[in-house]
Protein backbone atom coordinates (compact mmCIF):
# COMPACT_ATOMS: atom_id res chain seq x y z
CA UNK A 1 0.00 0.00 0.00
CA UNK A 2 2.82 2.38 0.90
CA UNK A 3 4.50 1.39 -2.35
CA UNK A 4 1.43 2.09 -4.45
CA UNK A 5 1.08 5.48 -2.82
CA UNK A 6 4.69 6.37 -3.54
CA UNK A 7 4.88 5.20 -7.15
CA UNK A 8 1.57 5.86 -8.78
CA UNK A 9 -0.25 9.09 -9.27
CA UNK A 10 -3.98 8.88 -9.42
CA UNK A 11 -6.93 11.15 -8.78
CA UNK A 12 -7.84 11.36 -5.12
CA UNK A 13 -4.35 10.38 -4.01
CA UNK A 14 -4.08 13.22 -1.53
CA UNK A 15 -7.47 12.35 -0.05
CA UNK A 16 -6.41 8.76 0.51
CA UNK A 17 -3.14 9.95 1.95
CA UNK A 18 -4.96 12.15 4.44
CA UNK A 19 -7.31 9.30 5.32
CA UNK A 20 -4.29 7.08 5.96
CA UNK A 21 -2.81 9.74 8.23
CA UNK A 22 -6.07 10.45 10.04
CA UNK A 23 -5.67 7.74 12.70
CA UNK A 24 -2.31 9.28 13.63
CA UNK A 25 -3.76 12.70 14.32
CA UNK A 26 -7.25 11.75 15.47
CA UNK A 27 -8.09 11.61 19.18
CA UNK A 28 -7.37 8.00 19.97
CA UNK A 29 -10.39 7.28 22.10
CA UNK A 30 -12.87 8.59 19.56
CA UNK A 31 -11.36 6.38 16.94
CA UNK A 32 -11.48 3.31 19.16
CA UNK A 33 -15.06 4.01 20.01
CA UNK A 34 -15.81 3.92 16.31
CA UNK A 35 -14.05 0.59 16.09
CA UNK A 36 -16.04 -0.78 18.96
CA UNK A 37 -19.27 0.37 17.41
CA UNK A 38 -18.25 -0.97 14.03
CA UNK A 39 -17.56 -4.45 15.35
CA UNK A 40 -20.34 -4.43 17.89
CA UNK A 41 -23.50 -2.80 16.67
CA UNK A 42 -23.34 -2.40 12.91
CA UNK A 43 -24.36 -4.97 10.29
CA UNK A 44 -20.66 -5.58 9.78
CA UNK A 45 -20.20 -6.59 13.38
CA UNK A 46 -23.40 -8.65 13.45
CA UNK A 47 -22.50 -10.48 10.28
CA UNK A 48 -19.08 -11.31 11.63
CA UNK A 49 -20.55 -12.54 14.85
CA UNK A 50 -22.95 -14.81 13.00
CA UNK A 51 -19.98 -16.18 11.10
CA UNK A 52 -18.47 -17.05 14.46
CA UNK A 53 -15.91 -14.27 14.49
CA UNK A 54 -16.14 -12.41 17.76
CA UNK A 55 -13.95 -9.38 18.01
CA UNK A 56 -15.33 -7.41 20.89
CA UNK A 57 -13.99 -8.38 24.33
CA UNK A 58 -11.94 -11.31 22.98
CA UNK A 59 -8.31 -12.08 22.27
CA UNK A 60 -8.99 -11.52 18.59
CA UNK A 61 -10.05 -8.06 19.66
CA UNK A 62 -6.52 -7.43 20.89
CA UNK A 63 -5.10 -8.28 17.51
CA UNK A 64 -7.61 -6.17 15.64
CA UNK A 65 -7.04 -3.24 17.96
CA UNK A 66 -3.27 -3.52 17.62
CA UNK A 67 -3.51 -3.69 13.84
CA UNK A 68 -5.62 -0.58 13.71
CA UNK A 69 -3.23 1.25 15.99
CA UNK A 70 -0.03 0.29 14.19
CA UNK A 71 -1.10 0.16 10.55
CA UNK A 72 -1.19 3.89 9.86
CA UNK A 73 2.36 4.21 11.16
CA UNK A 74 3.53 1.27 9.07
CA UNK A 75 1.86 2.64 5.94
CA UNK A 76 3.38 6.05 6.58
CA UNK A 77 6.93 4.73 6.92
CA UNK A 78 6.57 2.44 3.92
CA UNK A 79 5.28 5.34 1.90
CA UNK A 80 8.25 7.56 2.64
CA UNK A 81 10.66 4.64 2.25
CA UNK A 82 9.49 3.75 -1.22
CA UNK A 83 9.28 7.38 -2.16
CA UNK A 84 12.95 7.77 -1.28
CA UNK A 85 14.02 4.98 -3.67
CA UNK A 86 14.79 6.56 -7.03
CA UNK A 87 12.39 4.99 -9.59
CA UNK A 88 15.26 5.08 -12.07
CA UNK A 89 16.70 1.85 -10.60
CA UNK A 90 13.48 0.03 -11.34
CA UNK A 91 13.32 1.45 -14.86
CA UNK A 92 16.92 0.43 -15.56
CA UNK A 93 16.13 -3.05 -14.29
CA UNK A 94 13.15 -3.25 -16.62
CA UNK A 95 15.13 -2.02 -19.60
CA UNK A 96 17.51 -4.92 -18.89
CA UNK A 97 14.65 -7.37 -19.38
CA UNK A 98 12.99 -7.81 -15.99
CA UNK A 99 9.26 -7.37 -15.52
CA UNK A 100 7.66 -4.93 -13.12
CA UNK A 101 7.32 -7.36 -10.25
CA UNK A 102 10.80 -8.86 -10.66
CA UNK A 103 12.33 -5.40 -10.76
CA UNK A 104 10.46 -4.50 -7.61
CA UNK A 105 11.74 -7.64 -5.91
CA UNK A 106 15.35 -7.45 -7.16
CA UNK A 107 15.98 -3.75 -6.84
CA UNK A 108 13.38 -1.75 -4.94
CA UNK A 109 12.95 -4.11 -1.99
CA UNK A 110 16.70 -4.41 -1.28
CA UNK A 111 17.10 -0.64 -1.56
CA UNK A 112 14.13 -0.11 0.74
CA UNK A 113 15.45 -2.63 3.24
CA UNK A 114 16.14 -0.17 6.04
CA UNK A 115 12.72 1.37 5.80
CA UNK A 116 11.02 -2.00 5.65
CA UNK A 117 12.82 -3.04 8.77
CA UNK A 118 12.13 0.22 10.56
CA UNK A 119 8.50 -0.18 9.69
CA UNK A 120 8.43 -3.68 11.16
CA UNK A 121 10.10 -2.60 14.38
CA UNK A 122 7.87 0.39 14.86
CA UNK A 123 4.77 -1.60 14.05
CA UNK A 124 5.83 -4.13 16.64
CA UNK A 125 6.57 -1.47 19.22
CA UNK A 126 3.30 0.32 18.57
CA UNK A 127 1.40 -2.95 18.86
CA UNK A 128 3.07 -3.74 22.17
CA UNK A 129 2.22 -0.34 23.49
CA UNK A 130 -1.30 -0.10 22.14
CA UNK A 131 -3.51 0.72 25.06
CA UNK A 132 -6.67 2.64 24.36
CA UNK A 133 -7.75 0.57 21.43
CA UNK A 134 -7.11 -2.71 23.19
CA UNK A 135 -8.86 -1.57 26.33
CA UNK A 136 -11.98 -0.50 24.53
CA UNK A 137 -12.25 -3.27 22.00
CA UNK A 138 -11.01 -6.22 24.02
CA UNK A 139 -12.18 -5.03 27.40
CA UNK A 140 -8.95 -5.54 29.33
CA UNK A 141 -10.19 -8.22 31.66
CA UNK A 142 -7.68 -9.80 34.01
CA UNK A 143 -5.73 -12.83 32.65
CA UNK A 144 -7.96 -12.98 29.59
CA UNK A 145 -7.62 -10.01 27.30
CA UNK A 146 -4.58 -8.60 28.98
CA UNK A 147 -1.63 -6.94 27.29
CA UNK A 148 1.37 -5.35 28.96
CA UNK A 149 0.01 -1.79 29.05
CA UNK A 150 -3.25 -3.13 30.37
CA UNK A 151 -1.49 -5.11 33.08
CA UNK A 152 0.19 -1.88 33.99
CA UNK A 153 -3.11 -0.03 34.08
CA UNK A 154 -4.95 -2.72 36.02
CA UNK A 155 -2.18 -2.90 38.58
CA UNK A 156 -2.20 0.83 39.08
CA UNK A 157 -5.92 0.82 39.66
CA UNK A 158 -5.55 -2.04 42.17
CA UNK A 159 -2.89 -0.05 43.93
CA UNK A 160 -0.37 -2.76 43.10
CA UNK A 161 2.46 -0.35 42.32
CA UNK A 162 5.17 -3.04 42.31
CA UNK A 163 3.52 -5.02 39.51
CA UNK A 164 2.76 -1.81 37.63
CA UNK A 165 6.38 -0.76 37.72
CA UNK A 166 7.48 -4.24 36.66
CA UNK A 167 5.28 -4.25 33.59
CA UNK A 168 6.34 -0.70 32.85
CA UNK A 169 9.97 -1.79 32.95
CA UNK A 170 9.26 -4.78 30.71
CA UNK A 171 7.64 -2.44 28.19
CA UNK A 172 10.55 -0.02 28.20
CA UNK A 173 13.06 -2.85 27.90
CA UNK A 174 11.18 -4.28 24.93
CA UNK A 175 11.08 -0.88 23.23
CA UNK A 176 14.77 -0.45 23.95
CA UNK A 177 15.58 -3.87 22.49
CA UNK A 178 13.59 -3.06 19.37
CA UNK A 179 15.56 0.13 18.84
CA UNK A 180 18.83 -1.63 19.59
CA UNK A 181 18.16 -4.34 17.00
CA UNK A 182 17.14 -1.67 14.55
CA UNK A 183 20.32 0.33 15.07
CA UNK A 184 22.46 -2.80 14.73
CA UNK A 185 20.90 -3.86 11.47
CA UNK A 186 20.96 -0.40 10.03
CA UNK A 187 24.56 0.13 11.06
CA UNK A 188 25.54 -3.14 9.41
CA UNK A 189 24.49 -1.94 5.99
Amino acid at each position, binding site marked *: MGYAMARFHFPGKSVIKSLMDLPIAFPELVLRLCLLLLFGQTPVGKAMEEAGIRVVFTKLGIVVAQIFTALPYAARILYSTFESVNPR*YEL*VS*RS*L*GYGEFESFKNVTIP*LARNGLFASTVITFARSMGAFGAVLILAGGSYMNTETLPITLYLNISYGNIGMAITSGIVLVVLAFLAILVFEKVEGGL
Partner: protein
Amino acid sequence: MILEIENLCVDLGEFKLNGVSLKADRGDYIVIIGPTGSGKSIVLETVAGFYKPIRGKIRLEGRDITFLPIEKRNVSIVYQDRALFPHMSVFENIAYGLKKKERNSSIVREEVRKIAKILGISHLLHRKPDTLSGGEQQRVAIARALVVKPKLLLMDEPFSALDVKTRENLRKLVKKAVKKYDTTVLHVTHDFEDVFSLANEVAVMKDGEIVQTGRPEEIFSRPLNDFVADFVDGD
Protein backbone atom coordinates in the same frame (compact mmCIF):
# COMPACT_ATOMS: atom_id res chain seq x y z
CA MET B 1 16.51 1.03 -41.16
CA ILE B 2 16.88 -0.15 -37.56
CA LEU B 3 15.10 2.68 -35.77
CA GLU B 4 12.25 4.78 -37.11
CA ILE B 5 10.66 7.41 -34.89
CA GLU B 6 7.69 8.95 -36.65
CA ASN B 7 5.86 12.09 -35.59
CA LEU B 8 6.24 11.25 -31.90
CA CYS B 9 4.04 13.35 -29.59
CA VAL B 10 4.27 13.07 -25.82
CA ASP B 11 2.13 15.15 -23.47
CA LEU B 12 3.57 15.74 -20.00
CA GLY B 13 1.28 18.62 -19.11
CA GLU B 14 3.68 21.54 -18.91
CA PHE B 15 5.92 20.06 -21.55
CA LYS B 16 5.16 18.41 -24.89
CA LEU B 17 7.12 16.63 -27.58
CA ASN B 18 5.70 17.92 -30.84
CA GLY B 19 6.10 15.46 -33.66
CA VAL B 20 9.64 14.20 -33.30
CA SER B 21 10.90 12.12 -36.22
CA LEU B 22 14.28 10.42 -36.37
CA LYS B 23 15.82 7.53 -38.26
CA ALA B 24 18.87 5.39 -37.64
CA ASP B 25 20.60 2.73 -39.66
CA ARG B 26 22.38 -0.17 -38.03
CA GLY B 27 25.58 1.03 -36.43
CA ASP B 28 24.63 4.70 -36.56
CA TYR B 29 25.86 6.91 -33.77
CA ILE B 30 23.35 9.72 -33.44
CA VAL B 31 24.10 12.57 -31.07
CA ILE B 32 21.21 14.75 -29.90
CA ILE B 33 22.01 18.30 -28.84
CA GLY B 34 19.87 21.27 -27.83
CA PRO B 35 19.36 23.73 -24.99
CA THR B 36 18.40 22.55 -21.55
CA GLY B 37 14.72 21.69 -21.27
CA SER B 38 14.30 21.10 -25.00
CA GLY B 39 13.14 17.52 -24.45
CA LYS B 40 16.24 15.45 -25.23
CA SER B 41 15.90 13.20 -22.22
CA ILE B 42 12.17 12.78 -22.82
CA VAL B 43 12.90 11.51 -26.34
CA LEU B 44 15.30 8.89 -25.00
CA GLU B 45 12.98 7.83 -22.22
CA THR B 46 10.02 7.54 -24.58
CA VAL B 47 12.06 5.30 -26.85
CA ALA B 48 12.97 3.26 -23.76
CA GLY B 49 9.26 2.99 -22.94
CA PHE B 50 9.09 5.13 -19.78
CA TYR B 51 6.54 7.51 -21.33
CA LYS B 52 3.53 6.69 -23.47
CA PRO B 53 3.16 8.87 -26.57
CA ILE B 54 -0.24 10.29 -27.49
CA ARG B 55 0.60 10.14 -31.18
CA GLY B 56 3.26 8.75 -33.45
CA LYS B 57 5.16 5.52 -33.85
CA ILE B 58 8.44 3.98 -32.81
CA ARG B 59 9.69 1.06 -34.90
CA LEU B 60 12.71 -1.01 -34.00
CA GLU B 61 14.01 -3.46 -36.60
CA GLY B 62 10.72 -3.08 -38.42
CA ARG B 63 8.61 -3.95 -35.38
CA ASP B 64 6.20 -1.45 -33.88
CA ILE B 65 7.32 -1.02 -30.25
CA THR B 66 5.40 2.19 -29.49
CA PHE B 67 3.40 0.57 -26.68
CA LEU B 68 5.57 -2.43 -25.92
CA PRO B 69 6.46 -2.85 -22.22
CA ILE B 70 9.95 -1.60 -21.31
CA GLU B 71 11.35 -5.06 -20.63
CA LYS B 72 10.33 -6.39 -24.04
CA ARG B 73 12.17 -3.77 -26.09
CA ASN B 74 15.80 -4.77 -25.71
CA VAL B 75 16.80 -1.13 -25.46
CA SER B 76 19.47 -0.25 -22.87
CA ILE B 77 19.89 3.11 -21.19
CA VAL B 78 22.90 4.77 -19.54
CA TYR B 79 22.46 7.84 -17.36
CA GLN B 80 24.78 10.59 -16.26
CA ASP B 81 24.26 9.46 -12.66
CA ARG B 82 25.03 5.82 -13.63
CA ALA B 83 22.20 4.32 -11.53
CA LEU B 84 24.30 1.28 -10.66
CA PHE B 85 22.55 -1.06 -8.24
CA PRO B 86 24.33 -0.23 -4.98
CA HIS B 87 23.57 -3.56 -3.32
CA MET B 88 25.28 -5.59 -6.07
CA SER B 89 28.95 -5.97 -6.94
CA VAL B 90 30.31 -4.69 -10.24
CA PHE B 91 30.15 -8.23 -11.61
CA GLU B 92 26.54 -8.66 -10.50
CA ASN B 93 25.61 -5.30 -11.98
CA ILE B 94 27.03 -6.22 -15.38
CA ALA B 95 25.64 -9.75 -15.28
CA TYR B 96 22.18 -8.62 -14.19
CA GLY B 97 20.48 -8.28 -17.57
CA LEU B 98 22.38 -11.17 -19.07
CA LYS B 99 21.21 -13.58 -16.36
CA LYS B 100 17.64 -12.98 -17.38
CA LYS B 101 18.31 -14.32 -20.88
CA GLU B 102 21.14 -16.76 -20.33
CA ARG B 103 20.74 -19.59 -17.83
CA ASN B 104 24.23 -20.97 -18.36
CA SER B 105 26.33 -19.22 -15.75
CA SER B 106 29.66 -19.95 -17.39
CA ILE B 107 28.48 -18.17 -20.53
CA VAL B 108 27.35 -15.26 -18.34
CA ARG B 109 30.77 -15.13 -16.71
CA GLU B 110 32.52 -15.25 -20.04
CA GLU B 111 30.42 -12.46 -21.54
CA VAL B 112 30.93 -10.27 -18.48
CA ARG B 113 34.69 -10.83 -18.66
CA LYS B 114 34.70 -9.97 -22.33
CA ILE B 115 32.95 -6.61 -21.99
CA ALA B 116 34.91 -5.83 -18.82
CA LYS B 117 38.13 -6.35 -20.73
CA ILE B 118 37.06 -4.09 -23.59
CA LEU B 119 36.16 -1.33 -21.14
CA GLY B 120 39.18 -1.87 -18.92
CA ILE B 121 37.35 -2.78 -15.74
CA SER B 122 38.39 -6.43 -15.35
CA HIS B 123 40.18 -5.66 -12.10
CA LEU B 124 37.08 -4.08 -10.54
CA LEU B 125 34.57 -6.92 -10.90
CA HIS B 126 34.50 -7.82 -7.20
CA ARG B 127 34.09 -4.24 -5.99
CA LYS B 128 30.93 -2.47 -4.88
CA PRO B 129 29.89 0.46 -7.10
CA ASP B 130 30.25 3.09 -4.37
CA THR B 131 33.97 2.31 -4.05
CA LEU B 132 34.65 3.28 -7.67
CA SER B 133 35.59 6.61 -9.23
CA GLY B 134 33.05 8.37 -11.44
CA GLY B 135 34.76 7.28 -14.64
CA GLU B 136 34.96 3.68 -13.46
CA GLN B 137 31.30 3.71 -12.49
CA GLN B 138 30.34 5.00 -15.89
CA ARG B 139 32.32 2.24 -17.57
CA VAL B 140 30.43 -0.30 -15.46
CA ALA B 141 27.11 1.27 -16.44
CA ILE B 142 28.08 1.10 -20.11
CA ALA B 143 29.19 -2.52 -19.72
CA ARG B 144 25.89 -3.41 -18.04
CA ALA B 145 23.99 -1.81 -20.90
CA LEU B 146 26.06 -3.32 -23.72
CA VAL B 147 26.50 -6.86 -22.47
CA VAL B 148 22.87 -7.73 -23.28
CA LYS B 149 23.54 -6.80 -26.93
CA PRO B 150 20.75 -4.22 -27.08
CA LYS B 151 19.11 -3.35 -30.37
CA LEU B 152 19.61 0.23 -29.34
CA LEU B 153 21.81 1.93 -26.76
CA LEU B 154 20.54 5.17 -25.22
CA MET B 155 22.95 7.42 -23.37
CA ASP B 156 21.86 10.57 -21.54
CA GLU B 157 24.86 12.84 -20.97
CA PRO B 158 27.03 9.86 -20.03
CA PHE B 159 30.23 11.89 -19.62
CA SER B 160 28.87 15.08 -18.08
CA ALA B 161 29.98 14.55 -14.52
CA LEU B 162 33.55 13.64 -15.48
CA ASP B 163 36.76 15.62 -15.93
CA VAL B 164 38.11 16.35 -19.39
CA LYS B 165 40.75 13.66 -19.37
CA THR B 166 38.40 10.92 -18.20
CA ARG B 167 35.87 12.02 -20.80
CA GLU B 168 38.45 11.78 -23.56
CA ASN B 169 39.40 8.33 -22.41
CA LEU B 170 35.79 7.17 -22.17
CA ARG B 171 34.94 8.43 -25.64
CA LYS B 172 37.64 6.18 -27.05
CA LEU B 173 36.42 3.20 -25.05
CA VAL B 174 32.79 3.75 -26.02
CA LYS B 175 33.73 4.10 -29.66
CA LYS B 176 35.60 0.80 -29.55
CA ALA B 177 32.90 -1.01 -27.57
CA VAL B 178 29.89 0.00 -29.68
CA LYS B 179 31.83 -0.97 -32.79
CA LYS B 180 32.65 -4.41 -31.34
CA TYR B 181 29.01 -4.95 -30.34
CA ASP B 182 27.72 -3.43 -33.58
CA THR B 183 25.35 -1.23 -31.56
CA THR B 184 23.18 1.62 -32.74
CA VAL B 185 23.40 4.59 -30.37
CA LEU B 186 21.34 7.64 -29.44
CA HIS B 187 23.52 9.88 -27.29
CA VAL B 188 22.34 13.11 -25.66
CA THR B 189 25.03 15.67 -24.80
CA HIS B 190 25.89 19.31 -24.17
CA ASP B 191 29.48 18.73 -25.23
CA PHE B 192 30.29 19.38 -28.89
CA GLU B 193 33.40 17.25 -28.45
CA ASP B 194 31.05 14.23 -28.33
CA VAL B 195 29.62 15.34 -31.66
CA PHE B 196 33.03 15.66 -33.32
CA SER B 197 34.53 12.45 -32.06
CA LEU B 198 31.55 10.09 -31.97
CA ALA B 199 28.61 11.18 -34.12
CA ASN B 200 27.96 10.26 -37.70
CA GLU B 201 24.59 12.00 -37.42
CA VAL B 202 23.38 14.92 -35.30
CA ALA B 203 19.89 16.00 -34.28
CA VAL B 204 19.30 19.49 -32.86
CA MET B 205 16.30 19.95 -30.56
CA LYS B 206 14.38 23.02 -29.48
CA ASP B 207 11.14 23.22 -27.47
CA GLY B 208 10.13 19.61 -27.97
CA GLU B 209 10.97 19.47 -31.66
CA ILE B 210 13.88 18.41 -33.79
CA VAL B 211 14.83 21.47 -35.80
CA GLN B 212 17.64 19.97 -37.86
CA THR B 213 19.30 16.64 -38.52
CA GLY B 214 22.39 15.97 -40.57
CA ARG B 215 26.00 14.97 -40.56
CA PRO B 216 28.11 16.93 -38.05
CA GLU B 217 29.84 19.03 -40.76
CA GLU B 218 26.45 19.93 -42.21
CA ILE B 219 25.05 21.12 -38.92
CA PHE B 220 28.04 23.31 -38.23
CA SER B 221 28.66 24.62 -41.73
CA ARG B 222 25.09 24.89 -42.99
CA PRO B 223 22.71 25.49 -40.09
CA LEU B 224 19.10 25.59 -41.29
CA ASN B 225 18.10 28.62 -39.26
CA ASP B 226 19.31 31.26 -36.84
CA PHE B 227 18.57 29.14 -33.83
CA VAL B 228 20.83 26.28 -34.93
CA ALA B 229 23.48 28.73 -36.10
CA ASP B 230 23.47 30.45 -32.74
CA PHE B 231 23.39 27.23 -30.79
CA VAL B 232 26.33 25.55 -32.51
CA ASP B 233 28.24 28.79 -32.65
CA GLY B 234 27.60 30.06 -29.14
CA ASP B 235 28.64 27.73 -26.35
